[in-house]
């Protein structure tokens, strides 16, 4: 929370025009391999001081608590192993990749 809420705000809704809401994208992103990779590789995740296991816990907590939509029952939990696999490649082109993910599947409006 300390590291994330400063920009993403405590409930994840962000600031329009500055920080996108994560509330409407957590579940859609976590539902695709590319999206899961993105959630781990964004600098805020990848460069955080959390261990792979802690980061997996945080991502799972966010999906359970910050998502504006219910989690589908088949949505896999993040594990330390999965996080470790993605995390070693930091993502620089965040806006570019995010735009592609948002275009690739229907995303409900931010709330």
């Amino acid at each position: 929370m300390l590291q994330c809420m400063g920009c993403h705000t405590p409930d994840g809704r962000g600031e329009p025009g500055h920080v996108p809401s994560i509330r409407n994208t957590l579940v859609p992103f976590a539902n695709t391999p590319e999206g899961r990779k993105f959630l781990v590789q964004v600098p805020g995740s990848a460069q955080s001081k959390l261990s792979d296991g802690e980061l997996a816990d945080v991502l799972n907590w966010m999906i359970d608590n910050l998502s504006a939509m219910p989690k589908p029952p088949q949505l896999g939990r993040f594990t330390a192993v999965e996080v470790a696999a993605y995390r070693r490649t930091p993502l620089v082109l965040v806006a570019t990749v995010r735009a592609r993910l948002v275009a690739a599947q229907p995303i409900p409006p931010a709330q």
Partner: protein
Amino acid sequence: MKWLDSLTEGSARALAKRTSRRGFIGSLGAILVGVSTVPLLPVARGASPPGTSGPSTGKAPGGPADDKAKHVNDPTSCDYWRHCAIDGYLCGCCGGSENSCPPGTEMSAITWVGTCHNPVDGRDYVVSYNDCCGKSTCGRCLCNRNERDTPLYVPFQSNDYNWCSGSGKTNIPYHCSTARIVSVAK
């Protein structure tokens, strides 16, 4: 606003208010929900010589050690317990308060956060230093209690950014800083 830590009231006070904080940069990675570690920020306060601060001088009051008890619960004092990591003008001296903005300004949603110890109830609280934006700098009660600062390339702990950068329509004109309680630090 957590970025102008070089505007200090004098080298004696500046030296007094610095303590060794290196260990906390690592421990701040711990999250507060679902993880057991608690980053506790000691609240060692520097004391300014009497007469060098106060609302009339434009500097936040902070007296010698024996006055600290008086000031630690005064929201317009630099020694106020919530101000353990603040850096900017105190909104309480500018028409707002420790948790509200002066009239006609906008509170920035993006901000710097820290953890401060409340001596009254003995708890540690997560404090968010939301800036109030959209007007020229207030100029009253400058308080710099910067600790654990990181360079600009580590933004979430950098006090050198103008955190009014994310303030919606008012944008970057920085006016003053609040110290909002977000939660108890578990």
